[in-house]
């Protein structure tokens, strides 16, 4: 089983943050799980530690529907600098949207590893481990 050292959960829903945190830790795919309500904070973090691979997450679970900065804004901004990061980060969209338009739109971002729909389940976490 692959274990990720650091996993970022980007979601404005605090309950979902707790659920994800508990499930990830219970499944043992990540030891260091950090939750962000504001996507802008994540981008600022990544930019700050872009040259420090040990500070960068291995995986980011990104919600799309968020206030102030949503998932799309995050992806657009991330696209502009992810190649400069010292480490390749696996980004998964984790959203409650089952809209096909969103799914197709995500395909446009090559660095996004997958489109996952809530709720986060053990099956999904298994998929994450596989990736």
């Amino acid at each position, binding site marked *: 089983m692959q274990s990720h050292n650091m996993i970022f959960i980007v979601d404005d*829903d605090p*309950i*979902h943050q*707790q*659920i994800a945190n*508990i*499930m990830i830790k219970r499944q043992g795919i990540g030891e260091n799980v950090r939750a962000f309500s*504001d996507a802008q904070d994540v981008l600022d973090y990544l930019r700050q530690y872009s040259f420090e691979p040990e500070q960068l997450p291995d995986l980011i679970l990104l919600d799309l*529907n968020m*206030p*102030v900065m949503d998932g799309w*804004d995050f992806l657009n901004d991330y696209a502009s600098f992810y190649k400069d990061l010292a480490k390749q980060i696996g980004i998964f969209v984790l959203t*409650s*949207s*089952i*809209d096909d338009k969103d799914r197709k739109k995500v395909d446009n971002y090559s660095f996004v590893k997958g489109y996952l*729909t*809530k*709720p*986060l*389940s053990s099956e999904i976490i298994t998929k994450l481990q596989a990736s």
Partner: protein
Amino acid sequence: MMNAIMGNALTRAIPALLLDLHGNLLYVNQGAAEWLRVPEGEFHPAENVSSLHFNDVIGKHTNVYWPMLCHLHAMGRNACVDMYCHTRQWVQWQLTAAGECLLLTGTDISSRRSLADSDALLRSLPCGLQQFTPEGIHHCANEVQQEIWNAIDPAMSRPGYNLFEEPLFQETGLCELFEDVLYTKSSARKEILLGYRERETNGVVRILPSYYDATVFAVTDEQGVVTSLQLVMKDITEKQLSFRRLEKSSRLLDLIIEHLPIGYIQFDHFGFIRRINHTQREFFQYEYEETEAPFNVMSDPFARLYGLDKLFKEVMVANKVIRVEKQLDFSKDSRWTTQSREVWLDLTLFPLKDPVDKQQIVAVLVNDITDRKMEQQMRNQLQRNTEQLHLFFDAVDMGYTTMEKDGTLSFANRKAEEMAGRRIFAGESIYEILPELGYATPFRARFSAALAGTSSASFSSYFPRRYKWYEFLITPMRDGTVSVFIRDITDSRNMQKDLFRANKQLNKLNKSLVNQNQQLEDFAHITSHNLRAPIANLKALMQMHNDSRLPQEREQYLSLLQEVIFKIDETLNDLVDVVQIRKNVDMDREELAFSQRLQYVKDVLFADIEKSGILLTTNFEHAPVLQFPRLYLDSILQNLITNAIRYRTQERRPSLHFMSWQENGYTILTAEDNGLGIDMERFGHKLFGFRKTFHKNKDAKGIGLFITKTQVEAMGGSIRAESTPGQGTKFIITFKTE
């Protein structure tokens, strides 16, 4: 005794009558009895037997009666009377006294009487008479002759004058005349011009010639020797002038006939052409040659072909004028003319009596009416075409009229009359038929402009009094007239209107459906995003709860479940509110004063307003009231104020300014704050979304503007925002007014 003596004496001497003083015959002798054709002898007037009176035997034959004769005698004058007796003798009866009686003696004066008669005859002659010796010496002349010569030369009637030496006689040919008579001894006659004289006619003095008829004859003795030459002259000036005038008239008539503007042909009694005037010759383009056989209307094949012989005959027999129009094809004849074409002739044939031989002749007036006929045929054709055109236009289900530019109608088809509601006659004015044209209406202006224009113009107009829509097509024609087509488009207009209305309703419905569909999609989206997420949480937490064996964990999960359920409930309530608003699109509107509703909201939000210190200002002067559901307007005002308070900046005292005005039939309300502002480029499209927040404000739920937008749009309005980050936001709401 006395009577016997007298009788004897008288009987022997001279014819005599013895009369008493009363004129009664007492005795008539033989001579007197023969002249007077009365019995000879004594008469006894007292016995009243076979008495005779002077008046019976002489007076009534001479018109000289007894009293007149007695009167002359009593006056001492010569009392005599001349009488032409039965014996063809002239007798002069002389009255003389004879004692107590009167004596009437008769004398034969026949010889004296003839000489006196000759003088009188000469004096009374109505013509001049002049006697010359055989040598030409003037002998005598009567007064008339002397007057004639006096006017020319008085010397011509003086003694010793010799006519053979007179130049005038030589010039006029009178000398030759005398010489001829002298030679032949028979009479000779000549009309001569003897100078000129002035004549006044109607106040105008004219110099006119003096014509005389001169007759010369010789008087011979028993041996045949010429004893004298007699000249008889008669003034024939009047006759000559009349003759000249007649001649002139005749020549004039000839000229008139020759140059009549119409043709003239004269046929004799047998149908031969005797005269063709210049006009007719020109028309025939033909010159008659003497060598040709004369043309006869009764026998000429061409004349017979067209029945001209019968016409001639009819005029001759019936002796009446005939006028007829004939179409002749001259290409079938070469004798009449070289025209070689078909012509129409107007022929007037009339009979005349030849003034000389008294035979009936026929004159024909020929008028070439080919052009007129052709024109008439064209006009007839044109009229037929026009009638056909009119029939065609009558059959057309469209009003059609032709008119002058001043509106005077020349034709209107049946449909146009139906539209007008009455018969339309040529010459009527369109302005009388359509009273709507009589006023200064837009229709009148357009109609007049189209009439005056040079190209076709069409327009439609509504006639309120008729409840009709008419479409007009006005086309100026080349001849200066105008054709007007009128179509009743009321049905199509109504259908168009119905269609337009239906289309509008359909559009409205469609818009509403699109809107509803959009709302449904939005709602689906909202439920997808805002309900699915907590449900997913529920699902996850339930799974986690079920999987957990640790009571502590399970307790934690239950607590989270409760929190999720609360969130779901809250979201559902918000959504129910939205659904309610969208459902109530027909909410009752009422007239609301902005200032009053704002005051109410300020009272509700009193605490927040006080706490924030926000400055609220208004200008509702230009649109103080609004027809709107009160609940919604209160909610809108509350959300706008709450928004301004929630997103105020700490850098300055918050303020919010409300303003309203009318624009294009809409009421506009703006709410402009000086708060944080929004990056419209980034968040503009999500500004009024459900559960959308753009600031890290914990109180923000992202529902206020969504509700506001829903309420405004539910009542047919719209909302938009203008904002500059750091300066403030301005919301502009457009309310649809009913």
